[in-house]
């Protein structure tokens, strides 16, 4: 058991807007849910702190707009954080706040340490490149130049996520939602990242396709030992995948615990509402 977390996030904050006298002070903020009615500033993530451990799947649940995707985008450097720190064990011994690194270093971390599967496949894939090409693009970003090798690796990954060989050269725009998500997963895995972010990967898919994607995620955890942050508003998905779970509401973590404890003995009124509406 490695004691040091593979990823540590401390007091991550993300706001959209400048803030005003009514909302600038976190201690005496007059806001509705996550936004200030006066200046319209949105406090999408407020003081988010958690640890992700080696080989673990950490679930994040919360209603629409609670800040889940914003959190993931901040961690993947798609969005700049307003404030906060994060440390990656395998990056400079976990001593450096990755948010303060240069954009060049951010690219390095994205290319070698992180994988991302977006809620919206358009953000993660070039819809009119071939699937093999999409994966090759990520391999090139990670410094690979051997065309033959890249093609082999792409095919191997697509096979791993059960994309039929005959369709590997097809563009993702010709694929179903479930297939697009599986291509995204293959792409995210291509650089063997120790950390993978998955944002609502099964949302909008029909049940049997959902099952195959969930199955794939479990298999990746089991066979490759990758640590994952899995966002979903669907507690059934979280129950199947996550060892521990974080509950978010209005940009804040309101509760975290063992997944079965969150589901069977929820402490916070909102979590109770979420769980009871499931039964």
């Amino acid at each position, binding site marked *: 058991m490695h004691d040091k977390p593979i990823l540590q996030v401390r007091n991550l904050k993300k706001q959209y807007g400048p803030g005003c006298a009514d909302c600038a002070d976190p201690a005496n903020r007059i806001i509705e849910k996550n936004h200030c009615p006066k200046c319209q500033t949105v406090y999408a993530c407020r003081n988010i702190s958690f640890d992700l451990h080696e080989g673990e799947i950490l679930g994040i649940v919360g209603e629409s707009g609670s800040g889940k995707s914003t959190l993931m985008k901040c961690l993947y450097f798609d969005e700049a954080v307003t404030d906060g720190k994060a440390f990656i064990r395998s990056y400079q011994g976990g001593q450096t706040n990755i948010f303060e690194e240069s954009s060049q270093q951010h690219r390095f971390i994205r290319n070698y340490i992180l994988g991302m599967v977006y809620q919206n496949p358009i953000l993660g894939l070039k819809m009119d490149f071939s699937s093999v090409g999409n994966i090759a693009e990520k391999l090139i970003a990670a410094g690979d130049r051997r065309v033959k090798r890249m093609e082999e690796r792409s095919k191997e990954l697509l096979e791993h996520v059960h994309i039929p060989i005959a369709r590997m050269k097809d563009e993702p725009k010709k694929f179903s939602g479930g297939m697009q998500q599986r291509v995204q997963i293959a792409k995210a895995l291509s650089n063997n990242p120790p950390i993978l972010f998955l944002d609502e990967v099964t949302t909008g898919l029909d049940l049997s396709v*959902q099952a195959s994607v969930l199955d794939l995620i479990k298999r990746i955890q089991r066979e490759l030992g990758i640590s994952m942050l899995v966002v979903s508003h669907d507690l059934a998905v979280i129950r199947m995948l996550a060892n521990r779970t974080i509950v978010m509401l209005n940009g804040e973590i309101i509760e975290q615990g*063992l997944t079965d404890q969150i589901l069977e003995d929820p402490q*916070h009124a909102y979590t109770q509402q979420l769980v009871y509406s499931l039964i």
Partner: protein
Amino acid sequence: MSRLLEVKDLSKSFIIHHLTKKMTAIETINFSLEEGEFIGIVGKSGSGKSTVLKSIYRTYLPEKGSILYNSEKFGLVDLAKLSEREVLYLRQHEIGYVSQFLNVMPRTTARELVEQAVIEMGRPKDEARQAAEDALTHFELDPELWDSYPNTFSGGQKLRLNISCAIVKKPRLLLLDEPTASLDDASKLRVREIIERLKIGGTTLIGIFHDLEFMDGLCDKVYDLQKKIVV
């Protein structure tokens, strides 16, 4: 013999926010367990039997009191306050939980479920395969079912699979929450045999069975939740 578990003044209540209600499930429970012992817990429906087991397994957050457990890995720990990571480790390696319900993964066969239980402990795949086959054979799940999906299984078959998943990890402490509920008499008898074998193998057990006859001669002692005494 040495002490494996000591439950001290354990209390648990649930706060149901939307009803602005606090309900006490168990209050100041005390009992202890030596290595290799089997304790039965009795009490009428709603008396808090499952709450005791789930508090030990940490599915419920214990509210007051302590649950001292002598871990192979961590030494003497209080399960009521142990970190989530350590609880997960203990679930993986030392403490098992079996109920009548089965937590199925989609598209996972019975065999794979048992194998995964071993792989999760960090064991190699071929060892997991052998251990899974041994467990399924031992608990007499019809080999024709090994490669099918458990959501179609009968209550007794699910139970045998559940027990296989728990036992394949060779837990030191096994929690049994009415595993025989909804089984016919013949299946109950087989569960009894399984438990007897576990006892011989040295597993420490805490069990809830709603018919007392079933416990007869099986338990070393019985804790009565209403009287709050070991009888």
